[in-house]
Structure formats: structure tokens, C-alpha cells
């Protein structure tokens, strides 16, 4: 119980503008997502439409007093989306490092390993592109993060960003086009 209320308190302070509280909250959320990843994803078959949403929701339910307002919830989801991104990128990097460390010159013949490698590479590239986008337009990068890593719906994104739906739509469209273009370069 004590931990729950700590997290709710941290969340409240962070929403109130206390960035230290946000810093303290982030690792807690990260750990929670990491801890719970198996529960949600192990149930899914490869190729099935998978949403990190479920994981973020589960973490939310575990960490935060459910009675907080929707707006506060939305803030949590924004944070969780960022942590989700970090978690997945760390995982992808770990896999790539593992492969390289295991023998940089070894040719792997296992097609599954190759495709897993490709996937990890793709995610790292997406992450890099997203970082580049953030340098040009931080807002748009955040929106992408919310949508794809946090699994927020359009309505939820309106809540957390305060943007109108038409503005939101325009931003997302531009951001997606830019990212897709960036991923096809090189």
C-alpha cells in the first residue's frame, strides 16, 4: 500500500510541474513494465496484432491508485509510453550486442535468428529516426511515442496533449510521413 501511494504522490507532484518527481517515477514505471512484459506478451502469437497498450494498462493498474482523474491517467500513459520505448530499445540493443559479442564473423544459418536480428535492427533504426525527428520537432516525436509505444487512442491523445483532433491529425500525418521516409533512406 505504501508503495502505491508513493507512486500516486510522485505522479501528482510530476503533474504539478515537479520534474524531480518525474525523474523518480520513471525508473519505477520502467521496472514495472519490464517485470510484467512476459505476462502480457507471452500470451500472444507471433504475427498477431499486438499492442503495448495492454502492458501499459497493466502497469498502470498495478502502480497507481485507480481513482485518479482521467487527465492524470493520461500523464501516466505519456510517461509509460516513453518507458515502453526505452524498454523495447534496450531489449533490441541487448540482442544485437549479444549476437555481435558471440562472434562477430560467425555466419548464422538460422532463419529465425536472422529475422529476429532484422527486427531488432529495425527497431533501433526507428528509434534513431524518432530521435532525429525530436531534434526537428519535439512535439511530433512525442505524439508518435504516445501512439505507437503507449498505444493511446486518438481521444486519449487529445486529452494528454490538449491538441484539437484536427491539429493532432495533421501533426501525426506529417510525423509519420517523415519517419517512413527516413526509414526508407539509406
Amino acid at each position, binding site marked *: 500500500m505504501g508503495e502505491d501511494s508513493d507512486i500516486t504522490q510522485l505522479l501528482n507532484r510530476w503533474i504539478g510541474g515537479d520534474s524531480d518527481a518525474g525523474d523518480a517515477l520513471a525508473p519505477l514505471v520502467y521496472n514495472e513494465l519490464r517485470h510484467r512484459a*512476459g505476462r502480457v506478451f*507471452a*500470451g500472444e502469437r507471433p504475427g498477431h496484432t499486438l499492442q503495448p497498450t495492454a502492458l501499459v494498462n497493466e502497469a498502470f*493498474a498495478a502502480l497507481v491508485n485507480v481513482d485518479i482523474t482521467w487527465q492524470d491517467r493520461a500523464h501516466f500513459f505519456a510517461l509509460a509510453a516513453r518507458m515502453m520505448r526505452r524498454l*523495447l530499445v534496450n531489449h533490441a540493443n541487448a540482442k544485437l550486442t549479444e549476437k555481435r559479442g558471440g562472434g562477430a564473423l560467425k555466419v548464422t544459418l538460422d532463419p529465425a535468428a536472422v529475422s529476429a536480428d532484422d*527486427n531488432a535492427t529495425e527497431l533501433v533504426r526507428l528509434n534513431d529516426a524518432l530521435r532525429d525527428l525530436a531534434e526537428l520537432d519535439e512535439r511530433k516525436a512525442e505524439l508518435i511515442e504516445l501512439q505507437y509505444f503507449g498505444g493511446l487512442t486518438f481521444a486519449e491523445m487529445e486529452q494528454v496533449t490538449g491538441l484539437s483532433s484536427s491539429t493532432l491529425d495533421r501533426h501525426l500525418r506529417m510525423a509519420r*510521413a517523415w519517419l*517512413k521516409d527516413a526509414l526508407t533512406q539509406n
Partner: protein
Amino acid sequence: MTTSDWQRLEQAFEQALQLEGAEREAFLTMFSKEYPRLADKLADLLAADGQRNEALEAPIRAAADSLAETTDDVWVGRTLGVWQIEKRIAAGGMGAVFLAQRADSEYTQHAALKIMTGQLLAPDAISRFRAERQILASLQHPNIASLIDGGSTEEQLPYIVMEYIDGQPIDAYCDAQQLDLRDRLRLFQRVCDALDYAHRNLVVHRDIKPSNILVDASGDPKLLDFGIAKLLDAGSYDMTLAVTRADARAMTLSYASPEHVLGQPVSIASDVYSLGVLLYRLLTGQSPYRQTLNSQRSIESAILETDPERPSAAVTREGANTSPSPARLQRLMAGDLDNIVLKSLQKEPERRYATAAAFRDDIERFLTDRPVNARPDSLVYRAGKFIRRNTLALATATVFAITVISLVVFYTRQLTVERDAARLQAARSDEIAGFMNSLFANATPDNAKGEAVTAVELLDEGFERIDALDVQPELRAELMSNMANNMMELGQQKRAIPMMNRAREILEQEPERNGRALWLLYSRIAEANRQVGDFDESMTYQERTIDAAVALFGPEHRHVAFQMMRMGGTLFDMDRVDEALELEARAIEMFDALGLRESSQAIDARGNYANALQYVGRTVEAEFVHREVVTLSERVDGELATNTLIRIANLSGLLMRTGKLSEAESLIDTALERGARVWPENYDVFSQFFSYKCTIRNRLGDFTAALSACERALEVAQINFGEESKLYARRMRSLASQHGDLGDFETAAALYDLAETATAASSGADSVTMRTVYLSRSKVPLGAGDYDEAERLLRAVLREPVELSGSADLYARERLATVLSKTGRQAEATLLFDGVVIDATALVGEGPALLPTLAAATAHFRTSGDLDRALVLGERAQAIIDGSDESLTWRGAQALGEYGLTLLALDDDQAVVVLDIAHTALVKVFGDADQRVQALIP
């Protein structure tokens, strides 16, 4: 790229998106002249905008999958509710399925536990899930895996617990057992039956496929996973959804119907299509579509566009695997069986079998060498086509769609039956089809001048026309009777009764031939009259129903017992309780003798019996029977069934009245908690539950909780029944009563005014119910010392000639006696109290419920100087309190206080101790200043 470049690019991107074709070209040309450095980038962005977003989604998805694979399954070993998770069985779209074992039971019970990991936590998703669980709980069929339990994990993820089926998917089973064509068809028919049962309960499965139909070791098929099933009729609490939109992601494509693929509304017909694919596969080992289909797109386009190959041709394809030789199979299937399968696979829903039962029946005809119905342009085709044309146009009248569907299903089945009996020629079926066409054609929005056509109007109109229809009288009567049923479903009992009587007159012209139809009709007429409160008329028809049942089935039959049970209920409603008791006892005896003790009807009979026992004050027996009812209901109907929860509440109500408050409260909390898991937030039954909770909290002196429970009870009554309903009036009275008990007379009076208004509206200003309001209200002037007003109210309650129920009369006399005592009319008061104490003891027994009466009587005899009698009554109160396991209630404390004051008047040493106990208890509830507390200070 500079910030200003980026902004320029963004602006141009947005502008270009609003333009098309030549205009966009012109804009781009202009832009490239102006900003040559950025022109290529803009073109790239616009091109990328047209690309799918898969490039962004796929890496995230893949990384998540990969992360998951490296993590152990953390669910195994956990306990959810009473269920311990043993191992993972399967994973599916909406979550993971585990084998679980009951952790709290001596005997081993295995179950399949499904956790909805994919569910969003949005409140509406949760409540939808609860509603679906309620539907599943209501499906009880030997070939449908039943819902056992459900709840949420500590992470708030919903889960359900289903019957665990140890079996093989139906296609694998058929192959492993090398079933021949006939056996395959027989097995398939049982699947149709189960699905038809679900459809008749207005549940569509939406994901029929072999892995959802397991065949167990004894060869019984079981349908699993109504997990994505949606309700056709959103049920009694919310009539908003007639059909539901498909969620394209949540289906298995190979078995999906064209409308499902298109994301259009799915219905019974969609399940029929999936059944067709299943049958195709069972017969040929192949998919209905010849091409090797590997991409989602090619499967979709085949489902939408390609005509399936005839099964008899498909068996000769490579890979076909049924036990007889392909050549022999081809001969067996060519013709009728081909027609049957292809009919179920029609692209247009209305050209398929209208129901799973019709599908099943046609197979039956094939198996018994009778002509099958599967050929084009049948009545089903015409009726179905008509419906599609019109229901879409009539989307505003949502009830309408349900009615139409049920009407057509009924007619179709009815006509099928008739046709079998060769009693109805094609000309007659055209007559009916023509009738329906004209009926619905008149109901289109055009004719209704833009106003929604209500189902009631449609039925009214239909009834008129049926009466003039030139068909066999029996068929006409059945159509009428069905119209009447639909009227009943719509809550229009008063309109339904004349319809049913008209049908009855027709059928009674040839009573021998129509025995069965008349029996059914009598029971419906009886029920309709009971529902509108015409008990005498209802009794007449209940008697006729019993006579008809005895004639049809013999004197010892469940239909006879059932009707006796119903009649007992009506007698109880008519206050003929002794007769009710006798009839219920006979019904129970008959059910038990027939081996039907565990049928839900027998449980109903026991429930009625318990209520009647309780009513006449035989509380010990009532408690026993109530407990039996709850145990049986939990076993037979399930722990989450609506009936079970109501029965738990009934037991709680009884215990509350006999003063066993802790158990009563724990029971009502159980009912509330389980109800919250399976019902929508404001489900009507909650009103009753909260009302019990309110009374229990009141008795325990916790008025804050009592008030909020009473307010919820009122709110739920208002939402479901409106402010002119009897229930709303009663709940308002209870709320007023809470404030009265609390000593807040001003609020109480205002609420009693509202209660009187509501009672006048729902029951009438001179009704018996109004007198119960006066009775309750009298506590306000009595508490405030306005004895004239109290007397006026109580005299109004006791006014002749209306007969009050036993308790209302008793408590009115008790209060009047107190008023008389306080206003110096001691002799009259003594006379009244003599009778009141005897009657109350008879009614509630020598238990806590008697304490308020004892308190009032003790006070009277003490103040009028008859200390001996006061002492006797006080000692009775003390003995009841001593003998109770419960802690002292405020009503108990009042009785104890009166006893203490009597002891004080007799100079007894114990007086101080007794008064102190009573005083302490009352201060805790009401505070120092309350006059009930002050009265104890000598």
C-alpha cells in the same frame, strides 16, 4: 535542416494534402520554384504519406514479441479467487488460457481460466465485459462449455473461468475416429443444436471453427469460447443494440462470413455461414475455395467473390481425406448434400439457412431420405431479403429489428414444421410471405412520415391483418399468439391479453386437436394477467393450464408441478398464503418424486415455499428452506447466476428480520459483490440489494452507510422504473424512514411528501400502499412529540375497510398504543398493547425483531404504573439480547433502556448497570443530545 525549413515544409505538406491531381501538381511546381532545396523532400514526404504505417508498427510489435519470449510465464502458480493456475493451455487474440484447479475444495475441479490481457481498462470495456459474462452465465447447454466463475486479477485484468473440456478439435476427432459421412453429419447436427440454443438466447458466437468445437472422450461435442460473442438483443437492461459491428481483427479468417470480412453487422446468419465452412471441411477435408490461399487479401477476396466448389467435386481434389472412397462419397453427396452445404455458404446472409436449427433439419431430411429445403428462392430467401432491405432503413427503431428477427425466425421454423407435416401448400406459404411483405412495407419510414415506427405499432397492425388472413385457423391462432408474445416482450401485457384471447377462441373451436397449443396459451394468458395484477383472471387460466397439462401429460409430470408452483406464487401474491403453502409443498413433492429436485423450477418452488413460510412467521422452517435454495441454486444455476444472487438476497432478508445481522450483511455483501461482477452498474435488482444493505446498516446504527445504500436503492429504482413506479415510491419511503430514525425530522418530512406523491402516482391516493407510507411517516410526529398528527396518520392507516397485511396492521396498532399512552388514555393503550405483544410474538418469534415492540410496551406499562408487567416485558427483552450472538443494536438498546428505567422505578441495584449499557450504545449511534438518549437519564 533549419527550424524555418522544417516549418515551411510542414506547411507545404499540409497544403498539398488538401489538393488533388492537377491542382496539387501546380502547387508543387510553384513550391519547387520558390524553395528548390526542399522540393525533393516534400515529394518524398507526400509519397511516404501514401505508404502503409506497417513500417512503424512492425518493429515495435516484433520487439515486444521477442521480449516476451525471453520472459517466464509469470501467471503459472498464481491464485485468482479460488482458482490456482497450473499451466498454459493456449493463447488467443484476447488473452491467454490456462488450466486451473479449485484451490478451496476437497474434490478436484479443473477448469479453463482465460485472462483478458488484451482488454483495455477503460470503464466501458470493463462493463461490457461484465455484461458479456452475464450472457455467458445464462447459456446452460450440455454442448456448450459453461461459465463457472469470473473476476479481476489484482492488476484489474478481467478473467473468466469456464468448464474445462479435455477433447479434440472436431475435424481432428472425425479423422482420428475415421467417422463415416453419416456419423460426421450426426455430430455436426449436435453442433447446430448447441448453436441454435445460443441463438435463441440472442447470442451470436462469431468465431465458429474446429478449435472452438472440442469433442470429448464420450464423443460429445462442446462449443467453447463465446469470448467474442456479442449480444443480439442487449438484454433486459439496455435495448440499444440489435446487431453488432464486427471486429475484423478478432476473427479467424478462413471461417469468416463475407459480411464479417466487410466489417458489416454480423448475425445468426454469419454463424450459419461459418457452420457451412466447418461442414465443408468435415466432409471434404478442404476449404470451400479451391485456390491455395495464403495471404489475408486473397482469402478475403475468395470469401467475398468466389463461389465455392461443390463438395462432391472437392472430394476428388488432392488431399481429400474421408474414409469412404472419393468416388463413393461423390455419389453420396452429389445433389442434396451439395445443395445443403452451398446454401449455408451463400454470400448473401438472407439466402442461407435462417437458423442453425433449419440447417440441422435439412441435414435430417437428407439423412432420412426426405426432400431437402435447400433450393433457391424459398420463403426464407424472400423474407430475409426483405428484412435486410428494411431493417437498415429502420435503424432508429432498434427494438423493431429484434422483433422482426424473432418473427421471421419463428415463421420460418413454423412453416418448416408445417411443411413437414404436408399441411401447408406453397400457396399458403406465399400468403404468409405476402402478408409479411405488406406488413413491413407499410412500416417503412416513408409511410410513417419520418417518425420511427415502433414495434408496438407494427404488432398492433400485424394483429389486425392476421385476423383477416385466409389461412388455416390453427396457423392464424399461432401467428396471433406469437404476436402477443412479442407484445409481452415489449412490456405491453395489456395489449397482449386480447390478442391471446382471440387466439384462444380460435383454438377452442377444436379443443381436442389443439390441446398442446391451448395448454401453452392458457399458461401465457395466466402469466400476462398475473403481470397486470388481474389475479382472479390469472387463477382461472392457471387452473385451466393445470387441467390441460394433466390431460396431456398425466397427473404426475413436471409441467403439472411447474404450474402448481406458479399458482402457489400467485396465491401468495393474493395473500392466500395457506393455500400457497400447500400448493408449493405439493409441487416440491412432485418435483422430488420425479427426480427433478435439482431443476431450476423445483428450486423456484422451494423459494416460493420459503417466502410463504417466512410471511406467516414460520421463520425457522423458512430459514432452513432458504438455505437449501441457495445451496441448490449455487450448484445448479451457478454462483454468478442472477437467480442465485436474488436467492442469496432473500436469505439475507430473512436473517435480517430475525436479527442475525452479521450473517445477513455478509450475504448481501456477497450478492452485491457478485452482482457487480456480472451486471451493469445500475441493474434493477441492485435496488433490492441496496435496500437490504440499508436496513442492515440502519439496524447496526450506521446511518451514514444506511443513507447512502438507501440513496443507491432509490437511484437504481428511478433509473430502471421511473419516478412513477411502485418501487421508486417504496424506496423513497425507506429513505425518508432513515432520516426519521436519525432524528432529522425536517428532511424526513420532506422526503415523505415525495414518497406520498410517488405512491399516489403509482398506486393511488387511497391505496393500501399509501397507508404503509402513513405508517412509516408516523414516526416523525411521534418522535417530535406531535401526538395529534401521529394519531391522525395512524388512524388513517387503520381505517376500515381495506385489509392490511399482518405486519402493517400490527405496527400501526403498536404505534397508536404508544400515542394513546403518551396522551393519557392509559386504559385504551393497555388494551391495544395486550393484543400487539401477542400478535408480534406470533409474527416474528421471540427474537431481536420483537425488541421494538417490547420496548414500546414496557414504556407504556412503566409510565402507567403497572411495574410488574413492565418488568416481565423488560426481562423478556433482556433475555432476547442475552441470547443473541449479535452485538447490541440501537433498537435493542432502547428496549434495554426501558428495562433499566423499570428496574430503577423498582429500586433495583441492577438499574444503573443496565441503563449505563443502554446509554452507551445509544450515545454511540445518536450522540448525547438526542431525545432517545436523554430519555434514559433519570
